[in-house]
């Protein structure tokens, strides 16, 4: 199993399932910034960092029956996607793990633990944190990155949403530096 797919599947397995393609995109972006070896390239879109590489990777994993995609309609005309491992995937993961270098498994476990915690957060918080980090990564200082993200997302800088997103962004950045 390729390392990038192993890491992605391991994180989704740890979370049980992930509701929403947007949420999955932002969670992987945060993990990537912390060194998770998924090389998909992100660009800034209307809803924050977005990777067509990752979107294609997810669709490919669904097609190859590693992931199961569930759809529901929370509102007329809207579709919500939910992803979980296919019944056969845990065995594949276990086989890959059995022969993987211990360091690879340990690192994937660390990313998975953080993924699980963040998957419970509100998608707007993830979106705002990811957007702050996009501009921080571009080279902006924290205050400029936060101001830019808040402006793009119509968020008030002092709001609880912004404060939570700033904390999350700084947490991700600190893992990146270590």
């Amino acid at each position, binding site marked *: 199993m390729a390392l990038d797919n192993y890491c992605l599947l391991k994180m989704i397995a740890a979370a049980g399932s992930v509701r929403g393609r947007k949420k999955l995109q932002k969670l992987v972006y945060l993990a990537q910034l912390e060194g998770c070896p998924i090389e998909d390239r992100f660009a800034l879109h*209307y809803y924050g960092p977005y990777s067509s590489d990752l979107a*294609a990777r997810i669709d490919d994993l669904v097609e190859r029956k590693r992931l199961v995609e569930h759809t529901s309609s929370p509102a007329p005309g809207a579709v919500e996607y939910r992803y979980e491992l296919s019944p056969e995937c845990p065995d594949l993961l276990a086989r890959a793990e059995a022969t*993987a270098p211990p360091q690879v498994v340990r690192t994937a476990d660390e990313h998975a633990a953080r993924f699980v915690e963040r998957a419970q957060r509100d998608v707007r918080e993830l979106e705002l944190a990811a957007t702050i980090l996009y501009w921080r990564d571009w080279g902006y200082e924290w205050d400029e990155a936060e101001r830019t993200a808040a402006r793009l997302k119509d968020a008030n800088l002092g709001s609880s949403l912004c404060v939570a997103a700033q904390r999350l962004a700084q947490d991700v950045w600190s893992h990146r530096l270590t």
Partner: protein
Amino acid sequence: MASKVIRDPVHNHIYIDRTRDKIVLDLLDCPEIQRLRRIRQLGVSYLTYPGAEHSRFSHALGVCHLMMKALRYIQENHDQGEVPIDELHRTAIVAAALLHDIGHGPFSHLLEDEFGAKHEKWTIRIIESPETHVHRLLAKRDRNLPRLVRDMILPDRKDVPWLRALLSSQLDVDRMDYLLRDSHFCGVGYGRFDHDYIFHTMRVRPIPPDGRRQPVWLEKAVRVIEEHLFARYYMYWNVYYHRTTRGYEELVRAICQRAKQVLHDGGTLPGTPTVLRFIRGEQLSVEEFVSLDDAVLTAHFVEWQTGEPVLADLCSRFLNRRGLKPVDAPETEDQSMLANTQRIDAIRGLLRDKGLDPTYYLRESAPSAKAYDYYHPEKDTEQRTPENSILIEAGPSNYAEISTLPGMERLRAVTGKRERRRCYYVPDEFREQTKQLLRQT
């Protein structure tokens, strides 16, 4: 006053209004733009396609031409006042079209990640820096113009008009020019499409849920857009990610990494202070950065052919087109990660036994969407933006992503799945043994 006419092999006559678009003519004379003549549009693709010698300069001019053309079509195809474009914003987007690639470093995208030459960042620095000719010219025209041009390129504001989508989206003038130009100069037949008809059928509409304006296309355009998307697909695999080209890209990276290592180990290399600082990965000033181009770096490769043996060999291989040879990676899905690691370790051992450092003589390349990409629309309607989806006007206020339309099965077959073909590169004499080692179970 008659327009300035520039002959171009792709667009034939490029007309520039000497009064309304005087800034374009002035910008063309700036050293920062003239430098683009010395940067090939396709990096080292000329080693695969001998005709691919065209420069970033001709591409920049082509993008600027297509932008002016798109704006004319928009004015003609909308009622007066329906899509207002004030003169300053028009100037900003036309200038942005000309300047969008001004930050490219030597060999275009090739050294972007490892050597701090990310072109988007340098483009913004060149536009914002008061010391550049480009900045001074823009500011002289209007003191807000440098910021407006920057806003057309850098997506950090959302109060920027829809005009930005003409320059950066799934059906933008940048992609249109590079497909037409690259296919022309590579001598391949599949990069062509009817860009006039794409402009003719483009409309600017407020799109739900937030009512932001963005370009959409009339239903009668779908076949022409399909042709454009297939052109992208074929160019992606046959030109941009050609296996031979990727091998030479890896060779140039290996040269720069080796030179960096030599300097890091306390060795010396002949070279200008700026090139050596670039190789070390040090932060350059704008003035230093714009002194770098393909010609400057290639001249250093010529110099480095004598001296440190590994670097000399790598440079000689590049200059004499004796590149590393590709070996396809086996399908790795569901094979154990350890087995793959062991195979690669075995190849490294083989090279070491023959006195070759695998850091430079065993290279891996997997195409990704870093510089060029084919169309992969987002299937979540909420996430569809001009950056990732092409919208077709199927009826009043009814917009559909193009690949979801009936009759688009052929398009769905190439847009729905991302292919990744990983390759390893080794010296020719180790190719067969590498193939065998990769196949071993």
